[in-house]
């Protein structure tokens, strides 16, 4: 054991670092999906495309300003705002029109997925575009140097997650979101403008995905197809964590992120995905509500 650690310790450490970064970003994306499902009871299949839009908008900002730092800062503000507005528009003119009917919204958001994807292809082209990180420094560990930007991504994601937690737990808007989630009819009889709450939740969910896109793009580049994998991983996280639970989402993102990091480093990425899928199957059989069910804490 100790010789194994001596040989593989640094590699394990690297895997844990990578896994942590993945976990935080994944938690951000999945939290958006989970909030939307929790409060609005709809499965947003287009969620990954909102992440992709964040990444692509970040590339535009980089291309426009021609400066990695300014581009990054611009995208950090603009991408969530633009994507949030698209979400509000979709809520108003698509989801509300079909009365948030569970099955219809799945079909409608699949439609939305293709519209966003094809429009991006038209304007952006099929190329895979790299975006420079806003700054470059390496943190030197005894065994290897590690990207400072990646650690910043983890830190900023953690900050956003805490922000959402505070919003949900401490603010009037968050209280109204939780009340709407638990009983929309009674929420109305206590003055909650539930229509606006729905729009806010959908915008918040989209904004989180977009933010994750902006953060991730310097690590993994931008293209119009990049929304699929995070969508699938978010589904996995949300199923394992329990739909609508913030705590469950974060715990599940860590299970998936860290195990993905370790298995990818020591074995291969495909195996990590296979095991994640197996884990979902197991959770569905043993605890169909997910680890944290509907406690939405």
């Amino acid at each position, binding site marked *: 054991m100790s010789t194994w650690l001596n040989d593989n310790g640094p590699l394990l450490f690297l895997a844990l670092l990578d896994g942590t970064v993945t976990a935080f970003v994944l938690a951000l994306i999945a939290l958006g999906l989970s909030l939307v499902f929790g409060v609005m009871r709809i499965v947003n299949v287009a969620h990954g495309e909102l992440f992709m839009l964040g990444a692509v908008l970040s590339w535009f900002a980089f291309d426009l300003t021609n400066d990695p730092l300014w581009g990054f800062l611009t995208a950090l503000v603009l991408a969530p705002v633009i994507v949030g507005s698209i979400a509000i528009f979709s809520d108003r003119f698509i989801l509300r029109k079909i009365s948030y009917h569970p099955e219809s919204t799945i079909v409608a958001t699949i439609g939305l997925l293709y519209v966003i994807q094809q429009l991006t292809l038209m304007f952006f082209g099929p190329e895979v575009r790299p975006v420079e990180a806003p700054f470059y420094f390496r943190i030197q560990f005894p065994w290897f140097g590690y990207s400072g930007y990646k650690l910043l991504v983890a830190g900023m994601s953690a900050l956003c997650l805490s922000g959402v937690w505070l919003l949900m737990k401490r603010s009037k808007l968050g*209280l109204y979101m939780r*009340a709407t989630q638990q009983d929309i009819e009674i929420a*109305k009889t206590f003055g909650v403008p539930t229509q606006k709450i729905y729009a806010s939740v959908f915008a918040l969910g989209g904004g989180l995905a977009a933010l994750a896109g902006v953060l991730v793009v310097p690590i993994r580049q931008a293209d119009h197809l990049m929304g699929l994998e995070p969508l699938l991983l978010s589904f996995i996280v949300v199923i394992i964590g329990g739909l609508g639970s913030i705590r469950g989402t974060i715990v599940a993102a860590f299970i998936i992120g860290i195990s993905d990091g370790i298995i990818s480093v020591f074995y291969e990425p495909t195996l990590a995905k296979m095991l994640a899928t197996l884990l979902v199957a197991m959770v569905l059989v043993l605890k169909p509500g997910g680890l944290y069910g509907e406690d939405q804490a």
Partner: protein
Amino acid sequence: MLKINNLSSRYAQVKVLNKVTLKVKEGEILGLLGRNGAGKSTLLKSIMGLVEVVSGSISLDENILSEQQAHNIPKYGIGYVPQGRRLFPELMVEENLKMGLLVRDSSTDVLDWVLSLFPLLKSRMKQKSGTLSGGEQQMVATARALCLQPKYLLMDEPSEGLMPSMTETILETVEKLKTENVGILLVEQKIEGTLRVSDRIVFMENGSISEESDPQKLAENPESLMKYVGVKARY
């Protein structure tokens, strides 16, 4: 005055209320009796804007509530205690009450007043409301509605499934509220208590008001009770 004028309303395709006319004055307790399925809950939901109004109107003083969106209705001072309590089960008691306080930006004095009516809740504030006993949940449901300082309170079978002592507490609360000039529309199945606290009684049948009476008359002349709710009140 809370006025319901010739109100007809429906769920999707099903018409439930048929030309209901009713008034509740400030400080008045109106008991609404009728068998299961008569449309009592639908009437209260219609007032709260939760059911589609087909014709007729609902007004409070000079404001026409039936033209308002549901979420604006409580802001006029209408508190709703729904059938089956329907607390926000994952919210703490404190947060459920906060939902009431926020409707009309009530001050903490209001919360103090409400807690003085239900002192037991003081020790339950941090508890998830879904984990409370039935009686405690009913207290929270009533307290939540009182937190918006209602001019009118709509109570839908508040004593359903409760022990007699809890029912008594609720009736006492209703009587206290009357002295504070709150108008109460009380839907009940428990006849005796309702007759005791109400100023007037109306009977509902098949979505319409079929008779209006008062407790005095009903005591002397209990046939209506037999006819509309199928029980004999004992005195």
